[in-house]
């Protein structure tokens, strides 16, 4: 479970995120959408501990990120929009590195299975510079999944993937939720969000302007009844 309570992040006097609260339960896939500069990335980075919130509280799988960051981080995985890889470690070594950090017990078999799943088994000895953008993204996803996280945060996870990989990644995300992970998916691909997510958070100017299922959000604006996420999103963020 991911619990965010009154999250606020200030940059000087500028508020990137203001008083944001939401909960993502185990088994849920929650879509986070918003215009550019809305505060989505700041929110994700705060949740995974890259930046410190100015105010507010974040709990991952019951562990407070501020007071017990190691336990909280052990339960989560973050796949950023730009894959961050060490240019001097091979594909397999990235996974071995992650396995040691998270204490993955059955690492050898899990690494082999994941490499097959993301179609990198034949590139296990390759360095990142030999991989295409999509392959790097697949490796970043594999690194995120290796320790079976209880909270999974994905920022534009499909960027650079080919159609086959997109389909498999979508299946993987669903499977993670079915296995009990709380998933946050941030994307500008509203069709993807609509297809995968059980609930949606719409953020604008650092504030949560709508949350719930499509039906719940549309119920707040009767004129949007039956409209797709794109119409709902534009109506809410441009009004």
């Amino acid at each position: 479970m991911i619990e965010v309570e009154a999250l606020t992040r200030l940059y000087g006097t500028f508020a990137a995120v203001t008083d944001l609260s939401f909960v993502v339960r185990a088994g849920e896939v929650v879509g986070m959408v918003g215009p550019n500069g809305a505060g989505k990335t700041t929110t994700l980075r705060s949740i995974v501990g890259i930046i410190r919130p100015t105010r507010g509280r974040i709990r991952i799988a019951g562990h407070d990120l501020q007071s017990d960051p190691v336990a909280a981080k052990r339960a989560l995985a973050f796949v950023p929009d730009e894959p961050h890889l060490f240019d001097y470690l091979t594909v397999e070594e990235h996974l071995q590195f992650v396995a040691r950090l998270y204490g993955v017990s059955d690492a050898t078999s899990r690494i082999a299975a994941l490499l097959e799943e993301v179609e990198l088994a034949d590139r296990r000895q390759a360095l990142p510079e030999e991989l295409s953008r999509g392959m790097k993204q697949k490796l970043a996803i594999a690194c995120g999944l290796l320790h079976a996280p209880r909270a999974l945060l994905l920022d534009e996870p499909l960027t650079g993937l080919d159609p086959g990989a997109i389909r498999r990644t979508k299946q993987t995300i669903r499977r993670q939720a079915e296995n009990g992970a709380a998933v946050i998916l941030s994307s500008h691909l509203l069709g993807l969000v609509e297809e995968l997510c059980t609930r949606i958070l719409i953020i604008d100017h650092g504030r949560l302007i709508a949350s719930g299922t499509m039906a719940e959000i549309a119920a707040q604006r009767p004129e949007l009844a039956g409209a797709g996420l794109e119409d709902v999103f534009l109506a809410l963020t441009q009004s």
Partner: protein
Amino acid sequence: MIRHFAFLIGREAANRLRRQVRRLRSPRYALALLVGVGYFWMVFGGPGMGDSARGSGQGYLVAARYVGPLLLALYVSLTWLLGRRDALAYRPAEIHFFFPAPITRRDLLRYRLLRGQVPLAFTALFLTLATHAAPLPWWLRLPSLYVLLGTIQLHHMAAALVHASAEQQGLAGWRRNWIPLLLFGAAALSVLVALAGAMPELRAADGARAVLERLALLLEHPGVSVPLAPFRFVLAPLTAGSLTEWAIAIGLAILVLAAHYVWVLRSDVAFEEAAAESGMRQARALDALRTGGMGSYTRALARPEQKRTAGRAAFALRSSGAPEVAIVWKNLTFVLRNTTRALPLLLLIALGATAAILTAAGSTPDQVLRRIGFMLLALGVTAVVAGPVWIRNDLRMDLRFIELIRTLPLSPARLVGAEIAASALTLSIIQAALLAAGSGAVVLSGTLPIAATRLVLPALAVLVAVPAIAILGVTIQNTITLAFPAWVQLGAERPSGVEAMGQNILTLAGAAVLLALSLLPALLLGGLGAGVVALQWRAAAPYAGGLLALVAVYGEVLLALPLLGRLYARTDPGELGLTR
């Protein structure tokens, strides 16, 4: 085009300055600046400098006239042998905007030169202040140093272009540059032959003054004076005795500078061809740049056909056990895979060449071994002092990946500890290897005035002390990085080139002062302990004192780790300029 470039560089410099001034609102940056300025004033302008200034003016003249040309020639030779690809490095935004733009390669080179002028001017200013003891007034010294550094910068670029051309086009690339290569080869050979001939006289010279006199005579030998003429020309303004003499000297120096400028722009043809050869290559280099920084970019650009293989990892990493070992493993693997294999070979060649020259000059094998031993010891001591600045497989490298390492399930203190351990371990191995090899050579030479067995304990003591000093030095470097992340260049490679010389000297001096200060408690405790033990067991006193000092050093580092962890946890990725 130059006007547009000047606009860009000017705006960038102004914006950077504005940002730096804004950063001074933060008390820690403001305080650090004050301390830095105070240190600078104490060293270069403080009380008591006047007398020493008058006294050492002669030394400055001697250095600039006699030692300078030889050192400069040696430095330039190394540039030719090793290549300086960073002289051709462009930043990602420059590549993005300029490379696809309708800009000639010649203008690209002009831009690269123009961009180097601001740091070059800073370095010239720094050296002007640092050479306050010189008899030449500062307003003549400043332009003289600027011309000298500008010539070296152009020379780096020319050598880098020759190397790039040769690496990309093989033999054809070398053939294209046959004139500079022939000139350089002939000059080097001529100086080496003359030097070898003069070696017996130099060896026979008694005292530094006599050596300098022989050196002055050697510089007048046509075999040396002709090849070294350009070096003497660019150094001559610094030793001018009058304004007229300076005006003539600076005129000649500017001529050498202009010749280099023409050379660089003419070399542009090969660079342009190579750069335009393949869009694929550029894309691959850009990709390498994104993941591995400028070093990877230049490697990918310069050696596109050479497929990089992963190579050996530091050790087999098990999936269970202390997680920080994974960080140490990763950083040691980086060193193994990114250290050029030519480095030990170059050291061997240098030692072999020294042995050959000494043997030719009539030294006995024992004397040769002894001198090589002292060379290695000197290198080891240099590694102890400057090593923490050079070896950067710690937070200086990994803060680039802060968005990744922040999410790892490791407490900040343990992560910082692992990062420091990786660097300190690398450094300790290098230092211990150099010191052990040096001591071994000196002992084997049989020229020691005391029995070798009496040196066993002190040697062991040094080998035990070395890791402690290494860990302290690396901790200091990481403290600076975490305390002032905006002032430190992140990445595996430290800033290099003549442009960054001033900044590097300041960093080195600052780190040396901090190292001395942090060794103080250990020295005090060790001294006190030795004193107490000496009351009962005199012979054991140095070892007891040393042991206590070691405990104090490790204690300091252990005490520092939680504080550094807190600093790391508070480091804002925005301060590193890494947030998008």
